[in-house]
């Protein structure tokens, strides 16, 4: 009877995200960088690192100047109407890209999980087909390297003790799985220490961090304990929003432990450190 129900009409988010994987192996691509609003403003070093890695791998990076925000904060907080116009804006800015790379797993999850539905809500046929056409070329940074380019070793050098936190949207919505860890394991000089409960949310959750500040802080406290237990010098992830939250407590508690986006680790080279 199970067969009766397996019509194949329905896919989970994770399955559909897997469908979108294209392998670009050995091509020199024009990669458009969607830096995202908060990385642009608060974490420019992450953007510079992404540019460095992609150029080192032989690709050309473009930065469409009219880009702003994916709309995640508005959408997830219940301000749908404010988020809707950003779909068209994104398509407008990135439609000509061969690949779009985004150094933020939650922003990619926002686009992949919600843009098709949002385009339908807007009711613009052109936009619906544009979104469907563009989304398969939109990648989270680590995903672009591992699934898009089929790489593990990007020639990085980072002689530090590091632990990796699996951000929820990358883990569950994008299905990044082991990809970021494979990239990290290939980094020369790195001392990668596994963290306890790697898949447990750090408690950021966007506006959750201020709307439910007490619970968010309690969740963060568990994450900080886990980070400190590794003895790592730095905690990394594919999403600076989680890291900003983790970093904020690491600094408040004067732990001396840093946070660093995965791209900044992969940007490091032996030549640069000499």
């Amino acid at each position, binding site marked *: 009877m199970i067969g009766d129900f397996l019509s194949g009409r329905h896919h989970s988010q994770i399955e559909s995200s897997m469908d979108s994987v294209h392998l670009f192996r050995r091509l020199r691509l024009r990669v458009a960088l969607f830096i995202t609003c908060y990385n642009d403003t608060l974490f420019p070093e992450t953007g*510079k690192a992404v540019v460095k890695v992609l150029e080192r791998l032989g690709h050309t990076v473009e*930065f469409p100047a009219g880009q702003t*925000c994916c709309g995640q904060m508005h959408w997830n907080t*219940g301000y749908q109407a404010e988020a809707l116009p950003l779909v068209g804006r994104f398509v407008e800015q990135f439609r000509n890209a061969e690949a779009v790379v985004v150094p933020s797993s939650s922003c990619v999850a926002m686009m992949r999980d919600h843009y098709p539905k949002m385009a339908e809500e807007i009711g613009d046929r052109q936009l619906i087909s544009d979104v469907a056409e563009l989304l398969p070329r939109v990648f989270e940074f680590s995903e672009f390297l591992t699934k898009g380019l089929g790489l593990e070793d990007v020639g990085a050098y980072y002689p530090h003790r590091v632990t990796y936190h699996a951000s929820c949207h990358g883990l569950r919505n994008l299905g990044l799985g082991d990809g970021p860890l494979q990239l990290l394991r290939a980094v020369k000089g790195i001392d990668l220490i596994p963290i306890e409960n790697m898949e447990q949310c750090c*408690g950021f*959750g966007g506006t959750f961090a201020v709307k439910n500040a*007490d619970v968010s*802080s309690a969740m963060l406290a568990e994450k900080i304990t886990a980070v400190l237990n590794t003895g790592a010098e730095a905690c990394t992830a594919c999403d600076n929003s989680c890291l900003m939250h983790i970093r904020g407590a690491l600094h408040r508690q004067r732990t001396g432990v840093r946070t660093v986006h995965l791209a900044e680790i992969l940007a490091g080279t032996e030549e640069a450190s000499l």
Partner: protein
Amino acid sequence: MNSAASNVLDPKTSPTFPMAAREMLEDTQLRKNVRHATEVIQAKRARVVGEMPDWQQLRESGRQIREHAMANLDFYLEQFERNCTRAGGQVHWARDGEEAKQIVTALVKGSGSDEVIKIKSMTTEEIHLNIALEAAGVHAYETDLAELIIQMGNDQPSHIVVPALHKNRQQIREIFQREMNLPELGDKPQDLADAARRFLREKFLRVKTGVSGANFLIAETGGVCIVESEGNGRMCLTLPETLITIAGIDKVLPRFQDLEVMLQLLPRSATGERMNPYNSIWTGVHENDGPRTFHVVLMDNARSEVLADKEGRQTLHCIRCGACQNACPVYRQTGGHAYGSVYAGPIGAILTPQLQQMHHAQSLPYASSLCGACYEVCPVKINIPEVLIHLRNKVVEQKGLLSAEALAMKTVGAIFRSERRFRAAQRLGRAAETPLVRKDGRGDGWIGWLPGILGGWTQARDLQEMPKETFRDWWEKRGNRSGN
């Protein structure tokens, strides 16, 4: 947590989630109990789910069965009524909780009893049936071990499957010592189970009327299914002369064979068991076997309204396994009472406000970091984060666009619609934060205090000052601007 626990969990009067949560977070014993219990159940679940090669297909089957049942609910409810009636059951319809309580109370009175033995039932908790029965002079004995602990402790359930999960063995012993007058009682599991058994056996043999909920109503046969671990449910289903089952209209399954899927999904998700120790399925009444009179009360209580909402209706697919509660990092911190409803955790955060038709519990859709752990474990693939976002949108619409938050969100929305405004806002932000950045040699370049609602951020975290140069400024200087 006693203040919340000793009151009835009523979404109409409960404090907001952030307020209730703050109180729970101070209860270190409660947090320890909840963390321990959810970790144990999660590990058991992971083990028995991991051994199923077709788990994802089973989930998809479960989802489709539930979706089909809810999409054709009118048809299957009437089919259930016909088949149950044909088998000798009596079906009653209740529009809401009040009507359901009146019907059940009248049926109990009609059975000639002023006592009932009860099987653990979230539906009766939802409508606070015991209070209504008590008011009508009928005493209800909870027979599920955990529900008995809750009842004797004048407490409230904090979990769908493990309602006394917030209590540890020592606390349970104290309740039993006091309420059963057993000062010498030990705290070993056998001691506690033995005390409950002695207390309950006498009720099973004496009380002539039973009240139950239902895990599933089977439309095709008119049968009712209840799964449980202790066997006390089986006692309540077989020993009384009159059995009254109360079920939400969402409990319907089309076919008997659908249990093949559900009875694999439910026990593995709920208690981490391959199957439940007791699986009771009965259809109507049978001479010289079980209750002579059998009533089913089918209760709507706003489920029709949930069904009418295209995006919210998947909430009704829930089979009450509680896996989302065990997986939830928010529930893990606060336990169930903070949700102000008998339905706690992620499923409660979407079910409760909808059952209240969004008139109450508006803080619950925000009681989640949207981490998605609930969706990942849901045996019928309810996309809880998606429904949470949908309900947040409803809350925002309700609150209007004049709140401080709405105005801020609108302003930021306008900023994101223009590159020029976005760049201006980046510059303005840097200027605005300057007075807040520490320059006292104790954390220079960091902000340790923020005003208003943003103060929630700085209560446990610092914020690094904005860098002098945005990425796009750097990119332009680099002279590599794209042709777009």
